[in-house]
């Protein structure tokens, strides 16, 4: 074949694959930091139910959110997305503070408890995960499992503990909540004790789950969806709620991590976005998320059918940590440089 022939074949091939996509329905783009395995079926169902082309843009563990939060902030002047479905309020707050979201108030939002909504309605909580302790009894041996968060830094327990880097995701939110509850210095001092006494700081919550499942550590502080996945995969681990019962000793309660929805400012399809918001806040999604990743709906009146016995609902009697999510988001801004310094010092000490 002549060179021209090769070029023609090449151009035809490229043209073929370029023209292979068709778009007939109105499109709504949802950025989602919730694990794709849980979010994609929901968005696919939304497409079917609403007659829209609901497309998800997902996070990757390796990019640590840069693929999503950074993308939304970077594109805030010309957004290509309509909604942000976040796995925790910290990221929603980050996007809000960057000026990438706009206030919105769907009717159902008035029923969501105020502690799970942004006061300015830039984000609304609608479904929650819990912060849990994943326990591998075989790896724990004779070490008793802690029942309180602060016990994790106990000299006998800390060497068998793993948690994700406090710089990222839900762990950073957890540390911010701790700092709100007990002050920045005690919270950082607790982290330092953990580090000095041999606790392992993993790259992500998924990595924490892996370490516990493999028996490399006995106790892992992680999220309930990661724990649910480990149980579903048949791992020989169990799940505990820390600080679930109030007593005289310092107790903060179990941290509840609401999934949040934000509307991106200047998104291309606000009408379609409103329809998707109503769908995501409805009973069908509550049921789907309960079944797939043990989430509990935050909207009173909606049932979270199918939540595993390992993950009690909010109404079941455990003590939820009293958290002002917006204050935590703001606290995180001031706390992160200190956390970075802490992690740098830790890395230097390790070397």
């Amino acid at each position, binding site marked *: 074949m002549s060179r021209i022939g090769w070029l023609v074949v090449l151009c035809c091939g490229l043209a073929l694959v370029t023209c292979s996509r068709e778009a007939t329905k109105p499109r709504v783009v949802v950025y989602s930091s919730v694990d794709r395995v849980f979010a994609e079926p929901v968005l696919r169902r939304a497409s079917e139910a609403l007659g829209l082309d609901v497309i998800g843009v997902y996070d990757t563990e*390796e990019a*640590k959110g840069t693929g999503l939060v950074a993308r939304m902030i970077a594109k805030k002047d010309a957004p*290509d997305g309509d909604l942000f479905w976040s796995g925790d309020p910290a990221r929603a707050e980050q996007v809000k503070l960057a000026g990438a979201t706009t206030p919105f108030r769907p009717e159902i939002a008035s029923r969501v408890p105020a502690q799970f909504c942004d006061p300015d309605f830039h984000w609304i909580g609608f479904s929650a995960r819990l912060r849990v302790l994943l326990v591998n009894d075989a790896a724990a041996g004779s070490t008793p499992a802690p029942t309180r968060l602060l016990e994790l830094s106990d000299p006998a327990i800390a060497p068998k503990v793993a948690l994700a880097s406090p*710089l990222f995701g839900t762990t950073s939110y957890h540390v911010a909540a701790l700092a709100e509850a007990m002050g920045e210095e005690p919270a950082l001092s607790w982290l330092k004790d953990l580090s000095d006494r041999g606790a392992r700081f993993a790259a992500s919550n998924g990595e924490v789950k892996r370490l516990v499942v*493999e028996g490399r550590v006995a106790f892992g502080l992680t999220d309930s969806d990661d724990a649910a996945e480990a149980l579903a995969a048949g791992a020989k681990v169990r799940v505990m709620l820390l600080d679930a019962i109030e007593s005289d000793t310092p107790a903060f309660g179990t941290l509840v991590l609401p999934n949040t929805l934000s509307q991106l400012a200047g998104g291309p399809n606000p009408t379609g976005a409103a329809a998707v918001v109503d769908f995501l806040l409805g009973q069908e999604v509550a049921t789907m998320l309960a079944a797939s990743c043990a989430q509990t709906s935050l909207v009173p009146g909606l049932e979270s059918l199918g939540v595993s016995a390992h993950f009690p609902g909010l109404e079941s009697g455990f003590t939820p940590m009293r958290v002002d999510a917006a204050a935590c988001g703001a606290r995180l801004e001031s706390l992160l440089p200190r956390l970075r310094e802490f992690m740098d010092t830790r890395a230097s000490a390790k070397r």
Partner: protein
Amino acid sequence: MSFTRTRWVGALAALLPLLIFGVWPLVELAREASFETLDFARLSRTVKLGALSAIGAVLLGGPLGWAATHSRRGATVWKLLLLSPLLLPPVLVAQGWTVVLRPEGAVATAWAALGGFTSTPIEALESIPGAAFVLAICGAPIVLLLVQSALEKVPATCFDAAASLGASRLRTFQVAAGAALRRAMISGATIVFILACGECGVPTLLEVDVLGFDVLVRLAAFPDFGAATAAAWPLAALGACAYALSRRFADGEHGRDVIDSTDPDAPSDSNAARRRHRLAPIVLAGAASIFVLPPYLTWAAAIDAPSLHTAFELAFRPFLATLRSAGLVAAACSIVALLLVFSGGRAGLDLPARIGGLAVWLAIALLATPSVLLGLGVSASSWIPGALALPGVLVVHHVAIAWLVLAPRLRALPRDGLDSASGLGATPFAVMRRVVFPALSGAMFAAFLLVFAFSAQDLGATALLHAPGEETLVVALLSLEANSPRGVVAAYALLSTLVLVPVGVAGWLALVAKKKTGARGVRAGKIEVR
């Protein structure tokens, strides 16, 4: 249009995308930067990681290049297997190895049975040497190609002459192939060093605190685009320094071997068949079994029928998107690199040549800059059309690779031909079409293939800039990873490899076929002339 004016146009046309999609985004981000004191410990760890990766790639790729030159056709499967990491993102290879070396796995069990080790295999992987091990496996194919090409160019008569004069085997090899091998290894080591220094995913996964990891932390935790850019400047400087240093040691012939390894028009040794060695296929098979196959086998073991079905469903659109994106980028890169090469011309140091030279240095520095930063900068520049953002960033990030392939071939063109053509009144376009392009078409195809491989595996810029619904295979895989059933992730990983490798193989076979046809054509031409 005169030749000088054409070279002006070429230089500016090549420089423009580099400025728009490379320099401007970084300047845009740097305006917000709060430059801190450079952490020299982190910089030194980055250099260590890059150096260990480059050394590892040379130690692995060098012998494999020798084996590839001296093996029979039956070893093609092993060669392709050894080349397949070139099509995979390093972070995926690293994940594969974390599964292979997991504590309850066979490797860890055997390791423990041997006794006497202070750390487990997985702990060994989560370190600078461990990260370098992964990056060396991903970089070894580059060295393999270079060494194979260098050895194929050494005439068999050199070996015969040295042997008949009584030289030992080692001395013969050293004298006949030493210079070519040195150049090939320096070229390969440079490319691997630059890519390893700018790598973000593998250090993050394996918790190795180097500059690439620092960039991701600054982006994700704060997110502070300016600080991340500030952390990336040393990477660009490292890339440029490595390139300058390697040019010095490679006798100014940098990249010639890259082209000859893939270019169907490059000379090859017709006596290669005489030098086949019975150990060569064993070396290839052994290396493929130890360094490449384990992650693939682990993935394959985790797959079941429903997982495979799910993975098939999920992979179709990303596969098309990958073909579209990488194909477009590879074609554009080849063209920009051609303009770049042509602008430099052969006249020496006039202004267009200097502009072309500046563009080359820029391209090399941008190759060492994490693509995620370029993507962020382009996103922040709202005047750049969204549809152009991703291709533009990937083009400027990879154009240096295409340039390395094309430049030596243009320099090798006889100047008389170009001068005579222009002296006889041919327009620059005619010279380009009738003289330059035919001579460079093979090299352009080679550049196309290499850039296709690199841009298909890009994660940073693609995760940031891909249009909704247009995610590539790599981005889709890494977004699926968290909490998806292990079988689905394994099936998707294997499927991604299996669908990308044939694209590379098809291109490769086309090149081989063209090489044979080309060789016959040249001989036929000579006969006709006689």
